[in-house]
């Protein structure tokens, strides 16, 4: 722990230097409605704490949670299916890749028309952006199982299902955690984009409303909150990973 702290010290100093630069630059420009200083943002965050924490943060977290859960189910399912059958792999892989060429932000307004201003149009944006890295990373994890290992199990008389459970799933586990660490921030961004385009609550929506009022600090405040939540969530996943995956790097 001590070593980790010492390791992050240069990063902290660098971060503070950047913030200080921003602070000085923004004070020089002196146009808080478009370029607020970090201190102004923090003050605004404090002023807006009640609506941000009681209404908009829970709304965004609901979208993120649902989006992440659906993305995980979809991503793991697709990865397992593609690993199980080469035919499915041939069919699904191009579709999965093609889905990422859709400029989600551009067609998200349509989702609002299809699903209304409720939660599901936002969840869809979040899922569309999140399931892809999960699918591809976990699929790579399944493929990383060495043939020698699966052959060894075959000599014991293992079925395809045995090999999947006892070799492929453990092999994919470190990949799975990498996927989740990537997916958490992406799903939050997805939720915020969805809210930005059409919603009645949520941090993305709030940020946009502040924009229309030319309240620069008010635009940034919910974004700072989003970043903090994303980093905390990724850190949490990292902790779980450390407990579950003890063999990373060996093999």
């Amino acid at each position, binding site marked *: 722990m001590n070593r980790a702290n010492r390791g992050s010290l240069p990063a902290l100093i660098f971060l503070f230097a950047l913030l200080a630069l921003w602070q000085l630059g923004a004070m020089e420009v002196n146009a808080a409605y478009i370029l607020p200083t970090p201190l102004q943002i923090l003050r605004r965050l404090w002023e807006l704490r009640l609506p941000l924490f009681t209404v908009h943060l829970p709304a965004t977290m609901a979208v993120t949670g649902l989006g992440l859960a659906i993305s995980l189910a979809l991503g793991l399912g697709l990865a397992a299916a593609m690993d199980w059958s080469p035919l499915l792999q041939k069919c699904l892989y191009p579709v999965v890749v093609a889905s990422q060429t859709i400029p989600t932000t551009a067609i998200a307004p349509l989702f609002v028309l299809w699903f209304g201003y409720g939660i599901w149009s936002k969840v869809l944006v979040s899922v569309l952006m999140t399931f892809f890295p999960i699918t591809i990373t976990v699929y790579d994890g399944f493929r990383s199982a060495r043939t*020698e*290992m699966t*052959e*060894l*199990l*075959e*000599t*014991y*008389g*293992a079925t395809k299902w*045995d090999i999947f459970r*006892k*070799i492929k799933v*453990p092999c994919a*586990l470190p990949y799975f955690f990498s996927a989740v660490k990537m997916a958490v921030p992406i799903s939050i961004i997805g939720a915020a984009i969805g809210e930005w385009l059409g919603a009645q609550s949520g941090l993305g929506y709030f940020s946009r409303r502040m924009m229309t009022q030319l309240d620069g600090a008010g635009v940034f405040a919910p974004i700072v909150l989003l970043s903090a939540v994303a980093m905390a969530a990724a850190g949490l996943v990292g902790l779980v990973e450390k407990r579950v*995956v*003890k*063999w990373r790097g*060996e*093999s």
Partner: protein
Amino acid sequence: MKALEFDRVSYRYPEDDFDIIDNLSFSVEPGSFHCIVGVSGCGKSTILRLTCGLLRPRCGRILAGGAPIEGQSRYCGYMPQRDLLLPWRTVGENLALPLEIRGGYTRAERRELAESVLADVGLAGCAGKLPGELSGGMRQRAAFARTMLAGSDLLLLDEPFSALDFLTRISMQEWLLDQWEKHKKTILFITHDVEEAVFLSGSVLAVDNTPIRRLAEIPVPAAYPRTRACFARPETVALREELIEMLRRQVEV
């Protein structure tokens, strides 16, 4: 009844245009220890992979315990070149793997069996360790223990000691002979190390040509139990030189 019998077996890799195993017949008596010795890439591993069913012969029959291997399961224990202990399982859980796949054991029974075999191979108390905590020689012993738990008297070992340093290797060879004498298994052991083959085998099965049409059976003139002192005897030295000469003819420098 033979422990293992190849009856005019041929095998061809899909990318080749010749049979690497060509009409090969040989047999192995129960309780014997044979080394198949040959140069790298001569097809000796193919013989093991055919035996354990990872490859199917193009024609011919392979019999284990007098019956064709198709339709048999658990007639052999295969130990590949690398120990292949699963890094996410403890040593004990690794040993339990063949039992888990066979089914019909409770968790407690599996652990008990694994621990008794571990004690057998001199790794008592290592069941809870991860493979990464063991040395190379210990890992090979654990892998051997797992092979014994595969539940067969016919053990196929594919260059198990080739990655070990010299001193570890010779003590593992002595250890393996002890294990063989204790458990009365039939062992088919692949190596390209002539000295290893001479030290371990009752008779050496030498690959004198690729494609493999026959295995030249050369008895080793030394009785078990053996020590490395046997390398000082002129007949063992002569055999070693003869085998080296035979293998060198096949290596184009």
